[in-house]
């Protein structure tokens, strides 16, 4: 029996497979298909202080080996989460992290304080990289100054694990990673979606109501892998890798590049059982290569 456990700072995962925010609902959407408690960590849908209706339909465009979305953080707000979702998800035997977003610095801080009260939420993923909202979101994550400021303020009120989700839509992602590390982030997750666009030539119109959106899926995997590798070489905090992971081989590539854990996103839409297949596939790889623990492959890329 190989050891699949990994530690992300003070966060202990039974295996390195997590689900990416916005692709796995609150976890329970998938419980008809799999035992969701087998997953190392579930990061719930992006949550904001107040309810958001999100962007108008159409919000999605299929693209070669991927998809664009412009959901725009539709959610019922943090109070709804605390009163209606938390009582259900708190009993799931895995790490449930809340992806937290906001339009202003103040909104992030107030919501983080509220989440700090929840015993069974061991961490938050600070979303400073959503490309689909007019205010806040990615705007915070594309400059070192604002990324650092928001992490500093949230760190002051939030005591549990603070993961910061980084945007790939920047000149140098390592600089942003270093900036949030300096302000006390416990880990960084990357990459959020790439800023993209799709057009219907026949109608001479954009496909998305917002014209632009965020690209995910295997189309972005090589970029994500390169960024994870760059950031893992720059920072000392753990890196969580995501971007187009479809199978165990993809997941292992991210870990070899330096990720301590990985997140599965868009692949959940194609195969609702993919998380379990990836956990089993990683175990098989660890066995076949004669490792004792999955942590041995973190950053084990040979030159």
């Amino acid at each position, binding site marked *: 029996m190989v050891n699949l456990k990994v530690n992300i700072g003070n966060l202990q995962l039974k295996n390195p497979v997590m689900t990416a925010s*916005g*692709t*796995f*609902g609150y976890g329970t*959407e*998938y419980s*008809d*298909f799999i035992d969701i408690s087998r997953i190392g960590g579930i990061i719930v*849908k992006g949550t904001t202080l107040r309810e958001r*209706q*999100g962007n*108008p*339909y*159409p*919000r*999605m465009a*299929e*693209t*070669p*080996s*991927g*998809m664009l*979305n412009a*959901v725009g953080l*539709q959610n019922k707000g943090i109070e709804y989460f605390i009163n209606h979702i938390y009582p259900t998800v708190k009993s799931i035997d895995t790490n449930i992290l809340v992806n937290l977003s906001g339009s202003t610095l103040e909104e992030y801080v107030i919501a983080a304080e509220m989440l700090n009260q929840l015993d069974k939420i061991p961490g938050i993923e600070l979303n400073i990289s959503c490309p689909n909202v007019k205010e806040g979101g990615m705007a915070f994550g594309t400059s070192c100054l604002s990324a650092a400021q928001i992490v500093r303020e949230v760190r002051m009120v939030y005591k549990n694990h603070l993961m910061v989700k980084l945007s790939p839509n920047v000149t140098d992602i390592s600089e942003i990673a270093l900036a949030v590390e300096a302000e006390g982030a416990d880990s960084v997750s990357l990459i959020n979606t790439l800023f993209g666009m799709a057009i219907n030539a026949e109608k001479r119109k954009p496909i998305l109501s917002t014209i632009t959106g965020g690209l995910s*899926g295997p189309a972005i995997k090589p970029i994500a892998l390169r960024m994870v590798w760059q950031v893992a070489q720059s920072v000392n905090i753990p890196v969580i890798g995501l971007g187009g992971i479809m199978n165990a081989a993809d997941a292992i590539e991210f870990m070899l590049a330096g990720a301590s854990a990985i997140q599965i996103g*868009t692949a*959940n*839409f*194609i*195969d*609702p*059982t993919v998380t379990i297949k990836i956990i089993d596939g990683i175990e098989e790889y660890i066995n076949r290569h004669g490792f004792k623990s999955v942590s041995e492959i973190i950053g084990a890329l040979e030159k």
Partner: protein
Amino acid sequence: MKKFMLDLNVKQNVSLSNQYALIILSSPNKLPEMLPGQFAEVRVDGSSTVFLRRAISIHFVDYQINELCLLIQVVGEGTKSLAELKSGDNLNLILPLGNSYSLPSSKNAKLLLIGGGCGVAPLLYLGSYLKNKGFEVNFLLGARSKTDLLQLCEYERFGNVFTTTEDGSYGEVGYVTDHSVLKGSNFDFIYTCGPTPMMKAVASYAAITKTNCEVSLENTMACGIGACLCCVTETTEGHLCVCTEGPVFNITKLKW
């Protein structure tokens, strides 16, 4: 209802024209219960450009022989791949998804099931379901032309069939909303599925005649299970997912 991911076997793929295909799938095991109006998310393999599953209506289910039928209109690469499936191929589906058409409150209710083009697909299963429950079923099926009126004899097994074609090649000339059956009688419940302009015209007829009316939407979606929030429609309760809160909506809930 519990959802399943199943591999079904393509028993037969019948080309109904160059545009439509009837895929008959068989299962070695008992098929899960499905309700009329529900859909399946169908995986499309072997295409370099198709990434996501395709949401396809449950056209018909025969629990005696464990067969499931899907009616496909070829509109893009995904549906083209599905239309090219061969007998013996495997097809991976997630089902049953979404809500369903609701049953009328009175056994004597006069029902009209209005379908347009490939939107007739869920109405066959709905018609058979309603007939089994003891209701009298009327279908009003419209299409551009005679060749686009699909499987008429199948619908005739479960009720009266009225038809319209835009070019007058079969049935009455014009759109479904022009049909004389709508002028003569008062229906208690209208169920509809088809192109959005058609459903909007039906909804407006229903609103004017104060008839209970349910429509089935087909917004593009990714997951089909309420996780991605891509397929929303505007309702009186805000943005709701078509995949979980729909695809069937009462017109009073929609902002049409």
